[in-house]
């Protein structure tokens, strides 16, 4: 026969999970927020992309006197040896300036309000592209910026052709050089040779931190509210003669984790699909730039086991915060207690998030190691640092071990105190009081 005094038994967890999840989806409020969140995420990508294109368009169409002041002629005075193609020398076709006529001149003539002069010259520090307009020109400075940017790109590729340099040779010459400090040869050898630059790590770490923070902040209030439901419904006692306390709380926690995860996964997939669809129809430069902006090429180059590490770390982090939310939720006695409990977890989560955003750019090996080890912060930075080769495996392993130890601690604490907390209806207990309560059981957590 099973030991009925075993507080870690979880018989019935499946039934609690199923009931909680089913009822969550049956509830109009939860269903509405689920659909709303997914819809918002689906629209977010296309809206951002379209707004980027729209502002680009608005810039080009902002001149109310567009018809009269439309750019008609671009005079080019090229004082450099770099030559351009005779037909469409600045590749203006399919741009906002395609109607303009390019005229190569020895020197820029007197300009009318629909003409621009461009002087490409060699200076002391390199090449210089100067744009000239008439005093009464209707061409806006924004339009002028767009044009010079385009000419700049065009000049870039032409001078490469002129110098007879291939793309590979160009990359060899222009790849950036950075410096870094490593405190031991062992550390150096353990660092991945394909080290990703600090700026890129900051981007990945920020994105990872945002994902974790969204997961945590959304789940925390759901978990706390759901765990408190037993108290508000006054059904605790009936439940405690039907199901193990740990099964009750963990079933509810897992149900809420699945609810939030499925919401974010569906929202994320929806966003990816909708953004792709919109990008097919939206060929603007801004849209292309928007797509390029989210460059996760380094992540695609990861080995499957590193992707697994990222995934496992994410799940563990999520579990750690959710169990903590479950404990704090069962210590609440009334609706007003939810706020302070949510705040405690959000503070921890924000600390991790800020670390994930700020620390990667500092690029200090000692700081890297410390942040990868401290629980709650390590969960935001550790996995990204490791998979992108910023810290050696052993550092990540220590951080992971400490994180697992924290989860085990919280799990045991939950098993020890949940039954007591859930029948307590006097006042909200602080975390220190919860720890005291656990010590009243035989043995400490």
């Amino acid at each position: 026969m099973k030991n009925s005094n075993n507080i870690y038994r979880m018989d019935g967890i499946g039934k609690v999970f199923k009931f909680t999840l089913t009822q969550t989806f049956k509830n109009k409020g939860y269903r509405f927020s689920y659909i709303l969140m997914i819809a918002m995420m689906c629209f977010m990508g296309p809206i951002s992309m379209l707004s980027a294109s729209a502002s680009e368009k608005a810039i080009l169409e902002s001149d109310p006197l567009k018809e009269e002041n439309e750019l008609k002629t671009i005079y080019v005075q090229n004082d450099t040896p770099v030559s351009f193609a005779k037909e469409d020398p600045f590749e203006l076709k399919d741009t906002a300036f395609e109607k303009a006529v390019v005229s190569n001149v020895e020197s820029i003539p007197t300009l009318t309000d629909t003409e621009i002069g461009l002087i490409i010259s060699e200076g002391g520090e390199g090449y210089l592209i100067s744009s000239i307009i008439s005093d009464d020109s209707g061409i806006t400075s924004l339009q002028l910026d767009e044009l010079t940017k385009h000419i700049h790109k065009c000049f870039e590729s032409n001078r490469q052709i002129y110098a007879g340099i291939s793309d590979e040779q160009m990359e060899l010459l222009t790849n950036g050089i950075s410096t870094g400090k490593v405190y031991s040869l062992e550390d150096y050898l353990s660092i991945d040779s394909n080290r990703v630059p600090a700026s890129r790590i900051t981007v990945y770490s920020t994105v990872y931190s945002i994902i974790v923070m969204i997961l945590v902040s959304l789940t925390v209030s759901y978990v706390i509210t759901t765990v408190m439901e037993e108290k508000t419904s006054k059904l605790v006692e009936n439940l405690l003669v039907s199901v193990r306390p740990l099964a009750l709380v963990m079933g509810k926690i897992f149900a809420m984790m699945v609810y939030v995860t499925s919401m974010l996964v569906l929202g994320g997939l929806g966003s990816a699909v909708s953004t792709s669809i919109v990008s097919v129809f939206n060929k603007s430069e801004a849209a292309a730039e928007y797509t390029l902006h989210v460059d996760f090429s380094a992540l695609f180059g990861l080995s499957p086991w590193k992707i697994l590490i990222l995934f496992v770390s994410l799940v563990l982090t999520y579990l750690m915060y959710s169990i903590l939310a479950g404990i704090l939720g069962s210590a609440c006695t009334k609706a007003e207690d939810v706020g302070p409990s949510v705040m405690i977890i959000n503070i921890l989560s924000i600390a991790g998030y800020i670390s994930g955003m700020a620390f990667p750019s500092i690029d200090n090996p000692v700081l890297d190691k410390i942040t990868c080890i401290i629980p709650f912060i390590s969960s935001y930075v550790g996995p990204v640092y490791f998979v992108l080769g910023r810290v050696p495996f052993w550092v990540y392993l220590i951080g992971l071990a400490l994180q697992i130890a924290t989860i085990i601690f919280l799990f045991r604490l939950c098993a020890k105190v949940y039954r007591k907390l859930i029948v307590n209806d006097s006042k909200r207990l602080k975390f220190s009081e919860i720890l005291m309560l656990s010590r009243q059981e035989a043995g400490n957590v």
Partner: protein
Amino acid sequence: MGLSVKDLSKKYGEKTVVDHISFEMEKPGVYALLGTNGAGKTTSIRMILDMLDKDSGEVLWNGKPLSFDTCNIGYLAEERGLYQKYPLMDQIMYFGELRGGNRDELEKKIKYWSGRLKLDEYLYPEVKTLPNGRKSKVKPKSPDQLSKGNQQKIQFLIAMLSDPELLVLDEPFSGLDPVNTDILKDVVREQIDAGKYIIMSSHQMAVVEEFCTDITILSRSKAIVKGNLNEIKKNYGRVNLELKCEQDISSYINALGIQTVSVKEFEYHLKVTGEEQANALLKNLVTAGIPIVRFDLSELSLHEIFVKEVGADEEQQ
């Protein structure tokens, strides 16, 4: 065998809330836990059901520690409640499944108990015929639309779903109207006849007296009276005398020093010291040729025993 509660104690800080309480239920029947507010009844029940840690003592069911692994327990808690947002049928099914029932069996049991407790209208959609002849289903009420009494009946239904061997009813009749009280009483009687063990806590002495065979009266966390109800009553003797005559008999009553509790139109409620005093009064009345309509000498009621014992205990303090 049966239920054995040994030496239960509980302290909150320095305050003792349950002080070494023990009792046995060797055979099926109703055991009553009685006491004033805050005497420790609910705390004792929570310890018996292993919801609260005991500072000392043990609770055995057929020689093994009582838990829902070793005993099929049905429990009606003192605090009434239901999940306010979830459909009633889903909640009942959830509790039934947690207790190991399968859906088909549970549906039959819910149907039975719903009829028995007059809860059909709250659990099953009502089919109404519209003026155009079409039939329409009206959703049953949601939990937050139910009265406290009906919520209590739903909780009782949940307690009965697993066909429990041990039924623990904490204040089962409080908040029920007379019609529903009778419905619940009938069910309790059925359960007694079916050989179930029932622990009942209540303030309504008359109702408890109707069912229970054994009692414990708690006062300020201690058991002050404990045992078989009939035995307890016997110990107090037959001291309640209900007497009805057709004329004033005050002089005869006073002559023997008998205490008068109440008088209404020659109908006397007297407190005698015992059978001897009652017989002496009867003899005097017969000798005097006074016609007697009713002469009823009875034991103390549970209510009187409770008030007497708890009052004495409080006076001692």
